[in-house]
């Protein structure tokens, strides 16, 4: 179905009133009628669990799906640092407007103002909700909530629970979800992987097809609306900070059925991760951004300096972030730090056995504040670092290197979080809406919970109210056809019987995407990637080996299906990165840099969202644009000098 224009349905009026006005005019479903609707929620991370629980509380019938053995294990559990909210508890000048402003600017003027403003507004409710659920946020001695400044923000607006904020927020949402499972309003399907979405003849989402990951059974589920909260796609790079299971399949299957995929090339590479130690490396571990508050980043001035780091005197060290950015120093935004770190390593100045890292040194901070203070701030992170590397960061500087971490791109959604396919919604990291070309620290947790607790419960009613009395059935041609296609694909993967494992293809694909569509991109590299990826994809489909059959727990089959989708996504990422002939946020095109090496936007030609329409495997996708307007925050060149 050809979509040519996009209606983002941004309500009229001044930005402070848009959301309230909009809520006031959304159509409602009568409380007694809510139970007549079934909503399918795919995903049980912060976005999915909060949405599923909230729907059930309102009275809707809910089915919730996740691929882990329990909804509590969704990838959100791994978030460490914290969650932003404009509470201004510290009286340091924070406000809804400032959080909005910082987020739009941080996103390098590639996000939608109205969405971001709403996000900042509901951030206040999120903290209230989570505190009431018993999330054990850090407290001050007076018993009130503690905040810290995070990711270079000039105000203290980040709420946290030790180094496990994501875990505690997710457990809060999970517990609310389990309560509704107990009440019978939610039926939970763990170990169920969504393999397709069912679209009816009128272009409406009416259900999904799942695979039971224990028995291999393919199942149909019908719903009045389908909500995808299936997370981000950083694992396209193979090595990333994401959980091993994180994948793009649900969003990608929707894309293949007509949902537009927006800004796929906007990916965030996090500067502070533990470098890879060998070719068996299966993932990369994030070391929280907060470490840059006290750690100093440096490399030896001489390549191949064989001295122990503490033996290298000051004049022989290059504190390159402090040198290049005197006012922000080590606290420059993620993309700026990541780029600079890659640059010095590429120049041969890297440290460690593989020469693939830079030092993050706490010696000064320990001397200034004492070991105890550093222990209090970062004890658990230091312990984790030591567990992984066998080195004690109190004595030897940490080694860090950037790693893919978050994907700002995702399914295109309107202000109501509906994709261009009627009845299909996308929440959390799976959508594209709030972070523009770069996400600020502690804002993903905020967005996931904003979408799930405070946006979708309102906006979905507006849609459902028009469909009262519609009977659900899985015995339709649309379901039969989609199920058959899913089955056919599973059979096809199994029957290739080649020689290479899914993992080996994934690793190779990841290396290509990292090399040509990673921290810095250029036209020649992207064109090269656009030849390498299809060639490897073809080999995948002719030389894949899956051992074991389809009707059982088969982790190779699961992985192969995800890798197959990563291939197609990787291609789209490169198409988008090539098409976006400017730099912005995390998307640095080497052709477009300021004299200081910063991202140089081209607002005249690229101040829009690129929403891509699928045209088939190996076919050029169609770009549809949503122009962006900035009424409240005037686009400026970011500068962190």
């Amino acid at each position, binding site marked *: 179905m050809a979509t040519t224009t996009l209606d983002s349905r941004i309500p009229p009026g001044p930005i402070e009133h848009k959301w309230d006005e909009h809520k006031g005019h959304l159509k409602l479903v009568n409380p007694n009628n809510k139970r007549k609707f079934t909503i399918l929620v795919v995903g049980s991370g912060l976005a999915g669990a*909060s949405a599923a*629980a909230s729907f059930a*509380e309102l009275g809707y019938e809910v089915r919730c799906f996740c691929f*882990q*053995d*329990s*909804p*509590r*294990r969704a*990838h959100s*559990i*791994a978030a460490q640092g914290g969650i932003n909210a404009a509470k201004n508890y510290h009286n340091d000048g924070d406000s809804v407007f400032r959080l909005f402003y910082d987020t739009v600017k941080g996103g390098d003027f590639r996000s939608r103002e109205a969405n971001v403003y709403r996000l900042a507004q509901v951030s206040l*409710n999120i*903290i*209230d*909700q989570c*505190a*009431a*659920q*018993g999330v*054990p*946020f*850090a*407290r*001050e001695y007076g*018993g*009130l909530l503690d905040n810290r400044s995070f990711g270079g923000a000039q105000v203290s607006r980040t709420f946290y*629970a*030790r180094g*496990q904020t994501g*875990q*505690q927020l997710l*457990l809060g949402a999970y*517990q609310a979800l*389990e*309560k509704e*499972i107990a009440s019978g309003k939610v039926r*939970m399907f*763990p170990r169920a992987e969504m393999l397709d979405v069912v679209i009816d003849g009128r272009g409406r989402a009416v259900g999904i097809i799942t695979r039971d990951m224990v028995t291999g059974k393919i199942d149909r589920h019908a719903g009045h609306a389908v909500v995808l909260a299936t997370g981000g796609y950083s694992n396209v790079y193979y090595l990333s900070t994401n959980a*091993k299971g994180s994948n793009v399949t649900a969003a990608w299957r929707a894309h293949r059925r007509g949902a537009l995929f927006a800004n796929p090339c906007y990916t965030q590479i996090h500067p502070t991760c533990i470098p890879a*130690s*060998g070719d*068996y490396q*299966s*993932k990369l*571990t*994030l070391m929280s951004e907060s470490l840059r508050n006290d750690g100093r980043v440096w490399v030896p001035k001489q390549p191949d300096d064989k001295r122990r780091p503490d033996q290298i005197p000051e004049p022989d060290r290059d504190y390159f972030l402090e040198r290049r950015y005197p006012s922000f120093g080590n606290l420059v935004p993620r993309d700026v730090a990541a780029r600079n770190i890659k640059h010095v390593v590429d120049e041969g100045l890297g440290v460690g056995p593989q020469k693939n890292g830079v030092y993050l040194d706490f010696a000064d901070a320990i001397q200034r504040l004492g070991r105890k203070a550093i222990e209090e701030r970062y004890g658990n992170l230091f312990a*984790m670092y030591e*567990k*992984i590397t*066998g080195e004690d960061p109190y004595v030897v500087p940490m080694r860090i290197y950037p790693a893919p971490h978050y994907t700002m791109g995702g399914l295109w959604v309107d202000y109501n979080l509906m994709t261009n396919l009627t009845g299909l919604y996308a929440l959390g990291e799976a959508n594209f809406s709030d972070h523009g070309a770069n996400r600020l620290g502690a804002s993903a947790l905020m967005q996931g919970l904003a979408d799930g*607790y*405070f946006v979708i419960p309102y906006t979905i009613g507006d849609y459902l109210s028009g469909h009262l009395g519609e009977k659900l059935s899985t015995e339709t041609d649309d379901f039969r056809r989609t199920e058959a296609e899913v089955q056919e694909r599973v059979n096809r993967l199994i029957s290739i019987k080649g020689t290479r*494992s899914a993992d*080996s293809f994934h690793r190779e694909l990841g290396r290509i995407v990292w090399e040509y569509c990673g921290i810095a991109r250029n036209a020649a590299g992207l064109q090269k990637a656009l030849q390498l990826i299809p060639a490897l994809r073809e080999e995948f489909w002719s030389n894949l*080996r899956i*051992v074991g059959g389809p009707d*059982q*727990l088969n*982790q190779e089959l699961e992985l192969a299906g995800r890798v197959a989708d990563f291939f197609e996504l990787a291609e789209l990422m490169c198409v988008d990165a090539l098409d976006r002939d400017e730099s912005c946020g995390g998307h640095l095109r080497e052709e477009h840099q300021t004299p200081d090496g910063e991202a140089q936007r081209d607002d005249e030609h690229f101040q829009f969202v690129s929403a891509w329409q699928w045209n088939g495997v190996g076919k050029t996708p169609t770009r549809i644009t949503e122009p962006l307007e900035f009424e409240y925050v005037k686009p400026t060149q970011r500068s962190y000098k």
Partner: protein
Amino acid sequence: MNLTLHVWRQKGPADEGRMVQYEVKDVSEHASFLEMLDVLNQQLIGRGEEPVAFEHDCREGICGSCGFMINGDAHGPMPGTTVCQLHMRHFKDGDVLHIEPWRSRAFPVLKDLVVDRGAFDRIIQAGGFISVATGEAPEANLIPVPKPVADRAMDAAQCIGCGACVAQCPNGAASLFTSAKVSHLNLLPQGQPERFDRALSMVEAMDREGFGYCSNHAECEAVCPKEISIDFIARMNRDYLKAKAQRGMKTPLQT
């Protein structure tokens, strides 16, 4: 280093299962235990054999997906560590390792090292929450929580629900898991209204699911990757006993 592994292989829930021996060569000391198994699995696939199924996701010690026994220890020999965070530098060349799934009546084996831990979710369903629907919450700072209380609640809330406590317990008890959630919520002011009902229903759910009884072996605390203290079990038992006593009373207990 070179290792000899004896790994539990079981095709499905109905299969009997058996130990199978594998040799793994040239393992790097920097690899994690799961990465060592990845290497083994790639070799198995190369030979056309089914890889060993094991559960994992975050590989950062926080999601609670991973876990199996290594030479009789849940999550292996290092304290406070999940298998995904266990690195090979703690083993030596020539080691012989026996790798088995969690063994507990309440955790049936699904395949190889993968077990069904659904019983844990059902214990949470019995009362491991505070009833506050979205939108009902008061302003967050209206409920001050003394810092020591918040910190203590956080100590309990850290549980990752991996199941090591059950697997190591000679009785197969789930007391550490259950008490961690009961204590997290019952310590906080927000948790007071449902405190005694929560203790009662969660303990009853634990029994219903077929977990054993706690007889204070403290093996659970020793293997818990989050080092959760058995003091929480005592705390849960106190609330449970009070709740039992309350059953016969007309007026509810003061919290």
